[in-house]
């Protein structure tokens, strides 16, 4: 996962490579969940309405600091918006889906939250300036706790996608 994320970040900095890198990176990350049952990943269909609402609530939390301060945001062109959706879903499936489930099976819920948050933060080390990493880690912790306490990945996916699209 780290290799995919770091490669994606390095390739995306090349001219005209951002969209393909995000699309391919998102697809590669989603492949890490290959073979895992949807229910184990937190993608079951029970209480779907509640999960969707939870995702919207997570998006509100993620966007609040920006909404309170930003005077303008860029409108993403369609290709970049599609790429943003792909990489958001891919990251959630990989970190809070497959990695979380593997760690939880091996060492329990708290280790899964801490481990997935640590790897998620490390994965952003090349694409983000160092001063952003505590906020990235805090977002990962929020998603990880949601995943553990609500047994749900739909909420983090929706929250992550909306946050990426809106900013």
């Amino acid at each position, binding site marked *: 996962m780290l290799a995919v994320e770091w490669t994606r970040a390095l390739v995306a900095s090349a001219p005209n490579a951002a969209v393909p890198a995000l699309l391919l990176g998102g697809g590669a990350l989603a492949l890490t969940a290959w073979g895992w049952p949807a229910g184990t990943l937190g993608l079951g269909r029970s209480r779907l309405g509640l999960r969707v609402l939870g995702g919207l609530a997570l998006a509100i939390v993620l966007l609040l600091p920006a909404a309170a301060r930003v005077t303008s945001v860029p409108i993403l062109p369609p290709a970049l918006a599609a790429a943003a959706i792909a990489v958001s879903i891919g990251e959630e499936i990989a970190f809070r889906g497959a990695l979380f489930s593997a760690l939880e099976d091996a060492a329990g819920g708290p280790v899964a939250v801490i481990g997935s948050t640590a790897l998620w933060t490390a994965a952003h080390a090349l694409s983000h300036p160092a001063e952003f990493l505590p906020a990235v880690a805090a977002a990962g912790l*929020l998603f990880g706790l949601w995943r553990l306490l609500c047994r749900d990945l739909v909420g983090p996916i929706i929250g992550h996608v909306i946050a990426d699209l809106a*900013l």
Partner: protein
Amino acid sequence: MKRAALLGLAAALYLAAAWTVAPGFYDGFAPPQPYNFVCPPPIAGANLPPKSGHLVIMVINGVSDANSAFTDDGQLVIGFLPGSFDVTGKTQVTVDITPVSPCPNPPGLHFSTNAYQVAADAPLIKSATLVMRYSNLATDPSFVYRADSPNGPWTNIGASPQAQVYTIDTKTDKLGYFAAGYPAGSVSKGGGGASNQILPVTIAVLIVLVLVGGLPVTILRRRQARRGAAIDEEDDEEP
């Protein structure tokens, strides 16, 4: 309750962490590099001092070469065409870009960017293209202004309507002091491709959706819980 408290704590931790940095650190696209302010606004969070820039342009066959000078943080770029300078008696031209401190505060203008001094050791004789980046925390500038001194007077030298997001560009036939901003009391026209209201509207729509969607879900769950409790009671009453 414990679950809600833990999630609330994590949300509070996130809000505190996100507040210390400039907004926009998600990974759908490259995060906007934080703007380095000479005079940071209170909402800027961590701020690094802006960088200066230095360029040596070679004189080839009596003509200054084409080249671009830029600050090391990329906040100002100025491009020169071949023969942009009067190079009489010179073998090279030196261009220096320096952030101006203290920040100029001219009457009737608001600057969205730092002011920069762009100086060369030869006179400019052809227009140069100037590109200035600005922060997503600042109001979008409408124009680039130029002055011969940081104390002014500042002259509007226009702005290209095709500027990229968070950049403003124009042409200048003189070097000197540059800053991007807008007339005080006017509403900024906004930068290319940006929207001033989309984020608050998005948040408002999400809150309405959560409230409107949450009410029926909560009522349904309570009804189901009551039914379950009633069935349990009936089961208990059976001999």
